C-alpha cells in the first residue's frame, strides 16, 4: 500500500494552495507509493521509480502516475522542475507490465482467433491507454522543465515515459529500445509520435522495425539524449540541469517550452487506434503467451 506523507496526491499542500507550498531545509517527502515516490528537493520535484524488477508499468504504476499528473496540473507544489530517476538496479524501466497485460487479457483462456470478438477486454485496454496518455501528456506539456536521469534498461513504455521529458541525461550503460513488434504490437503509450517529434525517420524506422536497442552514445548522436555521463552520475547531473533550468523566469520558460514542444495530439490518437487494432489479432495473443510462459532467462534478447 502507498504510504502517504503529509501531503497526498491531488492535494498539493496542507493549505491547499499550490502557489505557496510549505518549504523547509530538508527535502520534504510528499508521497511514497508502490511504484513511485516523490519529494521536493529545493525547486525540483523529484520522482523516484522503484518497483522491481524494472519499473514495469501496470495498473498500480498507472494509478500513481495519474496521481502525480494531478499534482503537476495543480502546480507541482511550486516546483520549477520535475526530475525522473530510478532506484531499481536494472534500469529506468522495462516498459509495460506484460505479465499483467497477459493475465488480464487471457483470464478466460487464449482465444484462438484473438481478442477481436471480446469487446469488453478491448475496451478495458483502450481505457488503460486513454488514462496513461492523459498522464503522459500532462508530463509532456507540464509548465515546468522535466528532466530524466536514465541508466540501464529504458525499453518500451519506459522509453515512452522518458520521451515525455524535456531533457534526458543518460549513463553510458543506458539502452533504449522499442521491442513491441516482437509481440505483434506497436508502442502504445505515445512513443512513436513523440519519437517522430524528436528524431529523423532513419532512427525511428530502425528502432521500431527491427526492435533493436541502442546505447546512450547512439541516442545522444540521434538527438534523443542531451548528455551522456559516467555510470552512477546521471542523477547528480540531472539535478544540476534541473537547478539551472529553475533559475530562469517561470513564465518565460513556460512560453519557450510551449513554443518548442507541441503535443502531437492527432498522431497520439491514431497510435491508440492502431494499438487496439493490432491487439485484437491472434498474433499478439500467441506472442504474449510465449513471452509470459517462457523460461528463457534472456527474454529481452532477439
Amino acid at each position, binding site marked *: 500500500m502507498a504510504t502517504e506523507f503529509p501531503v497526498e496526491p491531488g492535494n498539493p499542500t496542507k493549505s491547499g494552495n499550490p502557489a505557496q507550498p510549505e518549504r523547509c531545509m530538508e527535502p520534504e517527502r510528499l508521497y511514497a507509493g508502490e511504484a513511485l515516490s516523490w519529494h521536493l528537493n529545493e525547486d525540483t520535484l523529484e520522482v523516484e521509480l522503484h518497483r522491481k524488477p524494472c519499473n514495469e508499468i501496470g495498473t498500480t504504476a498507472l494509478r500513481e502516475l495519474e496521481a502525480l499528473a494531478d499534482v503537476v496540473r495543480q502546480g507541482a507544489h511550486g516546483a520549477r522542475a520535475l526530475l525522473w530517476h530510478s532506484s531499481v538496479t536494472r534500469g529506468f524501466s522495462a516498459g509495460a507490465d506484460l505479465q499483467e497485460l497477459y493475465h488480464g487479457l487471457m483470464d478466460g483462456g487464449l482465444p484462438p482467433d484473438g481478442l477481436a470478438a471480446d469487446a469488453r477486454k478491448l475496451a478495458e485496454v483502450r481505457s488503460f491507454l486513454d488514462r496513461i496518455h492523459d498522464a503522459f501528456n500532462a508530463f509532456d506539456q507540464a509548465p515546468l522543465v522535466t528532466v530524466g536521469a536514465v541508466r*540501464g534498461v529504458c525499453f518500451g513504455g519506459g522509453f515512452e515515459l522518458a520521451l515525455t521529458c524535456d531533457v534526458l541525461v543518460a549513463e553510458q550503460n*543506458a539502452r533504449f529500445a522499442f521491442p513491441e513488434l516482437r509481440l505483434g504490437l506497436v508502442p502504445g503509450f505515445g512513443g512513436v509520435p513523440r519519437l517522430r517529434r524528436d528524431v529523423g525517420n532513419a532512427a525511428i524506422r530502425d528502432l521500431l522495425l527491427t*526492435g*533493436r536497442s541502442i546505447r546512450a552514445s547512439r541516442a545522444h548522436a540521434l538527438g534523443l539524449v542531451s548528455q551522456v555521463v559516467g555510470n552512477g552520475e546521471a542523477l547528480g547531473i540531472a539535478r544540476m540541469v534541473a537547478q539551472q533550468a529553475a533559475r530562469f523566469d517561470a513564465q518565460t520558460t513556460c512560453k519557450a517550452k510551449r513554443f518548442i514542444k507541441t503535443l502531437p495530439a492527432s498522431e497520439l490518437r491514431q497510435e491508440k487506434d492502431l494499438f487496439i487494432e493490432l491487439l485484437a489479432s491472434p498474433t499478439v495473443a500467441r506472442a504474449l503467451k510465449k513471452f509470459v510462459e517462457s523460461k528463457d532467462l534472456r527474454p529481452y*534478447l*532477439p
Partner: protein
Amino acid sequence: MTQNDITTKLISLAAERFQQEASTLSAADDLFDRLGIDSYQALELLSDVENAFNVEVPDYELQGVHTFAALAEVIGRRL
C-alpha cells in the same frame, strides 16, 4: 586488431563486469552459461563492449552468438 586480441579484450571486459577471474574464461566458453547472466546483464555487457570497441552492434546480430570467440567475430566485422 586480431581476433585473438578482440577475444582477450572481451574476456577482460566480461570478467570486470561480472567480477570473475579473466584467466578462468576462455574463447570457447558459452558466455551466458559460463557467466550465468540474464538478459539485463547481457545488455550491460553489450554496452560495455560497444563503448570499449567504439562500435555499434545491433542486438539481432547476436542471434546464435554464444561464445566469446563468436562475439569477437561480430565485433571484428565492425572495426
